[in-house]
């Protein structure tokens, strides 16, 4: 007998329906299949009006983010045999719903526009030289595929109305702040505009990151420390002021 799995998929078009509901589908099981395969089976064979967002099906583009049995995950990277044969798939809860499993993640690019772009030092001779060791530090953050699962799981974003940019955007800032030849310091901006202080380091974001980026440990805490060192540490402030004076005297 053909093995089947049961999918309970969230359905709602908020422009015409007040409330959504879970709709049950039966899908044949194929060895090694991922949740996206099952959801696409529904879309192609059972109901072509089901809205999903996907693209590469290789965990490289970060389009197919959703909540699988309540956990923020990539549908293309979640094997059915790891989540059981009765699976509930709902859209990301932290973003406005467009339709069914598709949410409006557009606000993320508005935030990205506020983060100053890479600003190289001006004194560099071309072609630039950098050491692999220095490159490695920023490389971790560049693995980010902008799936926004970290934004989705973040309780500061989900449950509170704060200016906090969210984990993805701290990672973006850190990727440039830790570029060996960047001359900008984004920590102040993150602190004053981006609500960095609202993050209370629960580390949920790094637990759900499909790229296994140590978001809290290596990006958020580093940026927080940088902000504190540069702008709140009284001793550092004094030294800085003295240096500035010396420079202006010279």
């Amino acid at each position, binding site marked *: 007998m053909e093995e089947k799995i049961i999918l309970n998929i969230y359905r709602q078009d908020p422009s015409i329906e007040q409330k959504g509901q879970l709709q049950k589908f039966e899908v044949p099981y194929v060895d090694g299949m991922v949740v996206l395969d099952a959801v696409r089976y529904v879309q192609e064979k059972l109901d072509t*009006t089901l*809205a999903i967002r996907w693209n590469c099906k290789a965990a490289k*583009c970060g389009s197919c983010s959703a909540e699988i049995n309540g956990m923020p995950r990539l549908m293309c990277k979640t094997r059915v045999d790891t989540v059981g044969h009765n699976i509930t798939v709902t859209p990301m809860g932290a973003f406005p719903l*467009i*339709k069914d499993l598709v949410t409006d993640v557009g606000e993320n*690019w508005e935030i990205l526009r506020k983060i100053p772009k890479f600003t190289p030092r001006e004194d560099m001779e071309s072609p630039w030289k950098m050491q692999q060791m220095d490159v490695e530090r*920023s490389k971790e953050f560049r693995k980010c595929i902008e799936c926004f699962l970290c934004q989705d799981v973040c309780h500061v974003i989900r449950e509170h109305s704060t200016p906090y940019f969210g984990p993805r955007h701290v990672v973006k800032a850190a990727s440039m702040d830790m570029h060996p030849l960047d001359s900008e310091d984004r920590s102040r901006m993150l602190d004053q505009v981006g609500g960095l202080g609202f993050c209370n380091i629960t580390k949920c974001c790094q637990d759900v990151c499909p790229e296994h980026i140590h978001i809290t440990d290596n990006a958020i805490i580093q940026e927080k420390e940088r902000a504190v060192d540069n702008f709140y540490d009284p001793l550092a402030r004094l030294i800085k002021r003295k240096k500035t004076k010396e420079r202006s005297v010279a």
Partner: protein
Amino acid sequence: MAEQYLNTESDILIIGAGGAGMRAALAASDAGLKVTVVSKSLLGKAHTVMAEGGIAASLGNVDPKDNWQAHFGDIIEEGVYISNWRMAEILAKEAPQRVYELERYGALFDRTPDGRILQRAFGGHSYRRLCHVGDRTGLEIIRTLEDQVIHRQNVKIIDELYITSLLKKDGKVIGAIGLKMDKGEFHCFKAKAVVLATGGCGRVYKITSNSWESTGDGLGLAYRVGAKLQDMEMIQFHPTGMVYPPGVKGLLVTEGVRGEGGILYNSKMERFMERYSPQKKELDARDVVARANYAEIQEGRGTEHGGVYLDISYKGADFVKQKLPSMYMQFMEFAGVDITKEKMEVAPTTHYQMGGVRVDPDTGMTDVKGLFAAGEIACGLHGANRLGGNSLADILVFGKRTGEGATDYAKTAELVEVREEDIQNEISRVLSFLKPDGINAYDLIDELTSTMSDNVGIVREPDRLNIALAKILELKEKYPKVSAPGGRKYNHGLLAAMELSNMLVATEAIVRSAIMRPESRGAHTRKDFPKKDRAWLKNILCSDVGGEMKLDTEPVPTIPAELMELVKQEVY
């Protein structure tokens, strides 16, 4: 009642936000023009992110003997002499500048011990030439360009917008009409020049390494307004795609694995590439290695799941995790295979279209005025076989050039009024798909892609090609009955219905061109004509003549003598 739509006027409309589209946008933005970029997927999700191994540029950081002349020779020879020499020359000369420029935009490449950009070996390149970021070079390029583009004031980005047709008046392309999927709104774009950067058509095959969006949309759009499609029979099959589990069949295994020392074995544990290519072995060009893998599997020396083995485990866990981190994760999480300890199972997978819309090498203009094309959608550079790493170089070099070409054109062109009737007709055409009880487009797409994978693969024979052509024509007959239930907002059924028309143009061109070329050259292998033929040193062109696809040939443009000195004489 007339349908509502939104209007956008810009100097340049760019369709597609992969590497080529974004680089073209930067070029036009640098010139101070007003640019609109539209993309089918979300910004930053384009197929470019799938590129793994690196970008080819003759910096000579690892092999000081490398130079543009050597790169040029490799492109022409491995493209089996049907590449456009001028495009090859431009790419070889300008790729290094584009790589350094990308670094100034903020990309972080892996480094040599003395701090310069590190370069790795790749199939068919005479020297170690691929600048890379581990095995996710494409992602680094997309993020870097995205960061530049979103900070430009004169670039407007509209994502999740599907262009349904181009607008043409008096022989010139003057804009486009599209459907914004997440809103269900129609848009009319007026522009002085339009750039196609829509990528390839890899999804017309069932087994493919390509993203969902690679349905050959640009081919259909350009073909319908009179542009010519060139060398469409040249479809690249990447030698190494995953074969197991079934859910990931076709998923790419980067050539970087072989570049870093990966060895291919058959089920008898023979290193079979020693037989097929005693000199270059695993690092011969993709067409050669793909055919070898295919032959081993066909002749019964394949693995349990119908592949061959690829081994990098002998290099040690630390090396593999540092050089190929994505591959390590991909096999661990999808297949449960630890590639630092076990061999991978791989088989050829559809990867790239060398053919596409014919363009002017210097400006990227197609055969239709006002319409430009860059990247995988454009044809000419790669000839009969693309070298790894040349596509990332292609999108940057020709993205920039085409952005500039379109800029120069736009400076002397005017915005043209679009007739309201034309807009309404196009909107009605799209909406006419929205009805219940027709044929589900996905069913036809399924038939089409299976037909292509079964009959128009690595080794082609006339009977099979004719079966495929008959199927394509049958599906074309059925096409008017395609429909989709539901509304206009985020309706994938509707989108599939529109994509299918482009997939039919792409496949018809592939199969008709494959039937026409009676020789084996590069990626095109004919069982009945196993050798290449001097008489076919030609490019095949497909064009729309009164609703029928007509084929034509043209001799490959002659390489000037001073450049010919850089190339080995072709041997027959």
